């Protein structure tokens, strides 16, 4: 299964909906997407991972890279994820302390700090 990406805007937030597999093969496309958004002046990102079937450390690296980019502009990168097997990977790697993780897009969009 391949990666699917779609973006939309709500106020000052840009929501990136990711589906499929984020792995060593597809991660470059997600990275490109995040780089493009930041280059476009979108500094408040919400990455919706609810339709992600597979996530590996390459995918984590791209998300961390995105976080650094938006932070350089005082922005934010929030994740939406309730899938236990995906959450587990963030937990194992200590990234739950780095990313704000929300239960829904609504929650992530209305969150501040």
């Amino acid at each position: 299964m391949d990666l699917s990406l779609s973006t939309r805007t709500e106020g000052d937030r840009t929501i990136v909906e990711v589906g499929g597999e984020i792995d060593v093969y597809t991660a470059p496309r997600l990275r490109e997407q995040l780089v493009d958004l930041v280059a476009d002046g979108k500094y408040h990102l919400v990455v919706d991972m609810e339709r992600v079937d597979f996530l590996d450390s390459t995918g984590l690296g791209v998300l961390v890279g995105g976080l650094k980019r938006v932070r350089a502009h005082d922005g934010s990168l929030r994740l939406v994820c309730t899938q236990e097997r995906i959450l587990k990977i963030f937990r194992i790697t200590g990234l739950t302390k780095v990313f704000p993780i929300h239960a829904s897009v609504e929650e992530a969009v209305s969150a501040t700090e």
Partner: protein
Amino acid sequence: MATVELRFSALPAHVRTARLVAAAVARRSGVDESVLDEVRLAVGEACSRAVHLHRRHCPDRPVLVTLVDDVDAFRVAVADEAPPAEVGSDGFGALTEVADLVDAEAVPPGVGLAVIAGLVDDVEVEVGRESGLVVRMTWPTAS
């Protein structure tokens, strides 16, 4: 002792093939369905790490995955051939917090090992005979 050996050139696309094969052989070996996701992810991590190192150091050498359906266990070994110098820098101890990533553009190979260590109960990492690391992972099987 039924064995499947997969050898592939260091390309990201083949990591998916390795995941697919590992999950299929694990299922047939009697690994519990609930653990197959773990097998897929762990084998994928070990292979991504190997592909990453090979592309940097020895792009023409293949990565080797060995799958063994043993009496009461399913064993996987992923062997890379990266030069020894590189090996020390991504041992298990090297990276405790991914949060410390310096350059997240290229994921340091240590992260993959950290994920494997956090995920799989029975993992061993040993230095290969000539070069590289061999990541050995074992899962119990029903039969």
